[in-house]
């Protein structure tokens, strides 16, 4: 069907169902595979391990636009704590892995997910403060409002926090951070760097 990397518009016929497998940005109408977005058509070899029936090259339409990163279960996210109470800390997710998110995603770190041991003795107020930047893992998609996040690993927890004096604090142990200016010590669940 024409050039390999031709630009296609929605509704354009790309090929037959018997020739290709329909990939991203395409849909099937009758016997034909049609483009559903504007973009470049690309044909790639079938995915390894696919069943015999799917041994056809995959045809896709790609439109340079990157979709916003979306947190998934198990991905590491960077979040900013916005609110705490005695049972949970609420945080806005800023990055998924290394990619910044464009939409607002809210996460919740529950009391039992703050650290791995002695989880019944955790106090949120001695683990996070509003304004802290936290590295966390996505536990589950949570409820309709927020993702459930966890910091129950050594390398997870607060990575950046400011002291009341407005200075970036330095970690001194896995649960303490110190202000280099006033030498005041505050409690946090600190991430191991």
């Amino acid at each position, binding site marked *: 069907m024409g050039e390999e990397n031709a*630009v296609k*518009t929605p*509704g354009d*016929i790309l090929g037959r169902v018997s020739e290709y497998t329909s990939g991203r*940005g395409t*849909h099937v*109408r009758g016997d034909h595979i*049609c483009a559903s977005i*504007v973009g*470049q058509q690309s044909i790639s070899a079938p995915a390894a391990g696919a069943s015999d029936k799917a041994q056809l090259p995959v045809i896709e339409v790609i439109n340079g636009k990157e979709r916003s990163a979306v947190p998934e279960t198990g991905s590491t996210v960077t979040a900013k704590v916005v609110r705490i109470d005695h049972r949970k800390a609420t945080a806005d997710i800023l990055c998924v892995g290394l990619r910044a998110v464009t939409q607002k995603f809210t996460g919740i770190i529950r009391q039992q997910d703050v650290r791995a041991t002695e989880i019944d003795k955790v106090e949120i107020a001695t683990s996070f403060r509003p304004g802290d930047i936290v590295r966390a893992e996505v536990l589950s998609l949570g409820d309709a409002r927020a993702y459930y996040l966890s910091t129950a690993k050594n390398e997870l927890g607060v990575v950046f926090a400011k002291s009341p004096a407005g200075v970036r604090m330095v970690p001194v142990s896995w649960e303490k951070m110190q202000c280099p200016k006033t030498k005041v010590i505050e409690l946090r669940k600190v991430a191991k760097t």
Partner: protein
Amino acid sequence: MEYVSPEGLRLDGRRPKEVRQLKCELAVLHRADGSAYLEMGNTKVLATVYGPHEVSQRSQSLHDRALVHCEYSMATFSTGERRRRPKGDRRSVELSLVIRQSMEAAILTHLLPRTQIDIYVQVLQADGGTRAACINAATLALADAGVPMRDLVASCAAGYLNGTPLLDLNYVEDSAGGPDLTVALLPKAEKVTLLQMDSKLPLDTFEAVLGLAMDGCKAIAAHMRQALLEHTRKQAVVRGPVRL
């Protein structure tokens, strides 16, 4: 009044089966996810698309498909007499509905469950055929936003004056009071997504007018496709080679 001269020319110098000059511009507003500016002769329309994003009113969320929300408005300076228009008047509510329905027919809504797509269409200058122009602009904006669609929706109006079917009526012809037929079409599948007519027509004439309007839709679709391709090529040049 004579709408077709003995030489077979209309008031604005077109032939009966001629559409007005089309001009499309894509991605005119960078804040929106997709936008398009469309001129059909002197009718000028701006369409913007936001989304797919989370449903703003949770109770409206549909678990198996996307919610399409459409708002039509006319600028105060769009007509000869400057007039303040209330947002929720009958005409604009009806037009919003019409645009939404014909877009919903094209968007692959089942691919985007629990999301919302907002389409805002604004008429900057009205000179007949605003309905068709709005639908065309909305399609282009959706295509620019990268919303998956079955096909482009192309729309065109047609009328019947002085015993002649006329394609793409302008304001003067529109206000002549003759039948005014607006059609929206999925051109590749040849499926009609919208068919509206004011006043009455005998059945055989109706079919001639409908056929003319559908031909107009196809011509407009071809032009819009061309505009999309050109825009994509330009972007490709700006961005440099695409890394996959």
